[in-house]
């Protein structure tokens, strides 16, 4: 069922996007380290081109497999990196916070690199995975994780701002702006995580007859959700809580990663095929 040309396009494309994301990260480091304004522009363009190639790879795989390419560990890791990349590109454009690329561009590279190390064979879907709801479920997860990934990067700057020196310190906006960006990114993530859990529940109802089974993946997405709910409320309580909220934005993203990688490796359950 696999088409060799499309398979090759995907393989070469994936290699190319890894290089592009990596080069983008390097330029962002140059931007942050030296006083080179143009480096940020170069970093942005490299990540943008990497993102475009990434999109093509995902489309090529989808056409090749004849289905949404969002079902196994490789496909989801790749989409996860794609989600962080698109959220990053949008947030940097909107808020003009270029130094963010120093944290988030390498994050995109690492997640894409993790994807690259997975088995990239195209496998056929077991019946339970053949559902339109699965598409919604995974697409919403990607946006949610992208939002949380950006929030994580900004929260690191928020927490480390006092320790930054030299040109980098000048390039980081004030706490109020950082807080606002974290909030915007978390609220995007929270809305989509809620959607993700609801579409997942609808799918579970169609496939197994119950919305919620407390399998480890579901449970960890609930833990993640609770952490961000606490974040949203802590923020409402003033400056001291703002710091705590930033810590939660970091912890929340660690939970996101655990939900995705840790649960698959350590805690088996219904979702263990994914």
């Amino acid at each position: 069922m696999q088409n060799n040309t499309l398979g090759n396009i995907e393989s070469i494309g994936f290699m190319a996007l890894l290089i592009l994301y990596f080069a983008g990260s390097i330029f962002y480091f140059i931007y942050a380290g030296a006083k080179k304004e143009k480096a940020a522009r170069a970093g942005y363009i490299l990540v943008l081109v990497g993102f475009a190639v990434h999109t093509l790879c995902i489309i090529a795989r989808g056409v090749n497999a004849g289905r949404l390419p969002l079902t196994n560990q490789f496909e989801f890791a790749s989409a996860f990196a794609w989600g962080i990349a698109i959220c990053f590109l949008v947030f940097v454009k909107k808020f003009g916070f270029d130094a963010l690329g120093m944290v988030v561009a390498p994050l995109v590279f690492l997640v894409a690199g993790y994807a690259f190390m997975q088995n990239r064979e195209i496998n056929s879907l077991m019946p339970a995975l053949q559902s339109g709801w699965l598409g919604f479920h995974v697409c919403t997860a990607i946006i949610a994780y992208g939002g949380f990934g950006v929030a994580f990067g900004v929260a690191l700057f928020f927490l480390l701002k006092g320790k930054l020196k030299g040109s980098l310190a000048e390039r980081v906006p004030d706490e109020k702006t950082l807080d606002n960006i974290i909030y915007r990114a978390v609220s995007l993530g929270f809305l989509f995580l809620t959607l993700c859990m609801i579409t997942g529940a609808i799918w579970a109802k169609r496939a197994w007859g119950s919305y919620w089974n407390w399998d480890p993946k579901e449970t960890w997405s609930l833990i993640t959700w609770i952490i961000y709910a606490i974040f949203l409320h802590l923020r409402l309580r003033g400056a001291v809580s703002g710091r705590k909220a930033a810590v939660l934005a970091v912890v929340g993203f660690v939970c996101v990663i655990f939900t995705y990688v840790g649960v698959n490796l350590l805690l088996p359950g219904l979702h263990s095929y994914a």
Partner: protein
Amino acid sequence: MTGPMDGAPDHKAGKGKDRPQGWLRFLKSMQFSFVLLFIIAAACVAGSVIPQGSSEAAYRQLYGDTGAKIITELNLDHVFTCWWFVLLTALLCVNLILCSVSRFPAVLKAWKASGRKSVGMWGSWITHLGMLLLIISFAAGQYTSREETVYGIAGSTQPLGGTGLSITIDSFDVSLREDNTVEQYTAGLTVSDASGNSKSGTASVNHPFDAFGYSFYQDSMGWAVYVDIYKSGGQVKTDLICAGEYTFPNELPSLVLMFNKFYPDLARNEDGSYYSRTPLPDNPHALYSVYYDGSVLGMGLAAPGTSIDCNEYSFVMRDPCEYTLIVAKHDPLSWLVGVSAFVLLAGLFISFYVRPWEKKRIQNAE
């Protein structure tokens, strides 16, 4: 637009008028929500890391005597259904109700002050309402839903638990792709009620069949075989058993044939272990064991038609066929869960996207 609490009607509204008692203040406070949410999250961690529903012996093996004792004492073997988890959830509902009720007048006032235009004012209030409805409808669903399980081969009819309905499995089909992976499992079903009304349809994975208020799910499948039992050459019994089940001669129940596992297309790995090359019955074999008075007499692999002899008795397994397991669910409150989820999502959207946008518009107007 970023300032914490800016202009937001907060949970302390109502202060000054009839100031509530200390404990009531705590019950509706955000501190209390933090405590509850934190413990619930911690319980979820425990419930995902500790295997749920295992036996005490299994916990002892995994965590030692003390560990097992702690787990069973604290109900960590069934976190999500234990009394303290239910209590925490109930307290979260109380917290949500009190906080929503006490904030209501302030939100209403702010909304009226906006000329009844600012929907954004309601965002977090609607979110909390959705959350509350979701917890309540989910909990109510646990008590109002019913579940029955039946399994059988094509052609069999059986009652559906105590529901008064009966179900006939008209057909069961496993469709395979070219590479022998399963594409779909489909069961043709007819469901009848006591007064003779009936409805037919198919249930396949992701596509349940609805009839008489129940949804019928194609859950799983396995292999069954017919077993003929002979005594001194004369047939004394015929039974149909599924993998994992056993049968015995009626006059000698202590002699048991157990049908452990079925290999549709038996093959051998290099290390000597057995597996099935394809899901097609090209080289069918059943793994069986024979017991007498609880101890094993023997075990082996038998092709259909092979006679397994024990003194004057012999067992012959024949005609392997696939059975299907159907789960029937009656869930009268599922629509309420759906409505709650929609309210929650609408509330979140208003909080995060309508409200900031309205604020911006107001600021620009000023």
